[in-house]
């Protein structure tokens, strides 16, 4: 489920890269926080608001030889710690 991993540029040497990881509750998991935010928005007059889901944005800096390596390492981090596959989905972007 990753974004922006196409068109890998090859960098001359190890560089610091920034990754933005998005962690969202799975569709089938109840998101009481999202529901509460939706209700509040509607009560404030934003009646056009439908479903709201609240997740997390994690920004991290890492050293990598190239974008591909940065993406592979970020994905490993998501699987191991940043997201819990039972209840959450993740995606990420790698920025230079």
């Amino acid at each position, binding site marked *: 489920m990753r974004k922006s991993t196409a068109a890998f540029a090859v960098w001359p040497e190890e560089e610091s890269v920034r990754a933005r990881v998005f962690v969202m509750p799975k569709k089938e998991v*109840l998101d*009481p926080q999202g529901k509460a935010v939706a209700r509040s928005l509607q009560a404030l007059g934003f009646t056009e608001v439908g479903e709201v889901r609240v997740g997390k944005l994690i920004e991290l800096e890492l050293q990598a030889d190239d974008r591909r390596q940065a993406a592979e390492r970020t994905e490993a981090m998501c699987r191991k710690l940043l997201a819990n596959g*039972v209840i959450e989905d993740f995606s990420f972007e790698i920025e230079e």
Partner: protein
Amino acid sequence: MRWGVVVFPGSNDDQDTLWAIEQVLGEPVVRLWHKDADLHGVDVVVLPGGFSYGDYLRCGAMARFSPIMDKVIEFAGRGGLVWGICNGFQVLCEAGLLPGALVRNRDRRFVCAMSYVRVEDNDTPFTRLCRRGEVLRIPIKHGEGCYVADATTLELLERNRQVLLRYVDANGRATSEANPNGSLDNIAGIVNESRNVFGLMPHPEHAVEKWMGSDDGLKFFQSVLAAQRNPGTTDRTAVAPGH
């Protein structure tokens, strides 16, 4: 029988658990620090309640990678008894020792109340002194105790009789009103397939003497002790429905 209680930074029910084991049950117990790399020869490991590592990222997510957890996972793999209470239950789910996960309560509120739970199965070292269908009064206090798992997992839990406790009303009925946090199928506690790893959201260590309002929680501690002294016998009688 030698007990061990793991202390993570942010654990806050470790003292109550130690006290329940040492002062009420009368058994030797050691504190296991999260950085310890061995279990000091204990026969049962308890992961207590609290907010390990500030509950950062997800409840139990960081604690799962502390040095002692490698040993706990190894111990559980050899059939050792592991028992997680509240935050300890969350850690066991994060570690993959128990299926499913615990998420924010349905009503988004932290709940602190006495709860009724029904014992669904007593064929485990943790519930063997309980009767099936017996209703226990045990307090709960948590913000993220809503048990979730996918449909396949839930079916397996039922088929293998791994659901040990369900939230019920005083009459033993598992109604939606009796469910304090939105847990699927009113699940309050489960055991793994090999029946040596137990996790529950209620706090038995806060219900071990009459003056606490209930001493029903002591049954789990006594069960573990009885199982160790006399493995292999379980009271298979059940309480009539409705109790």
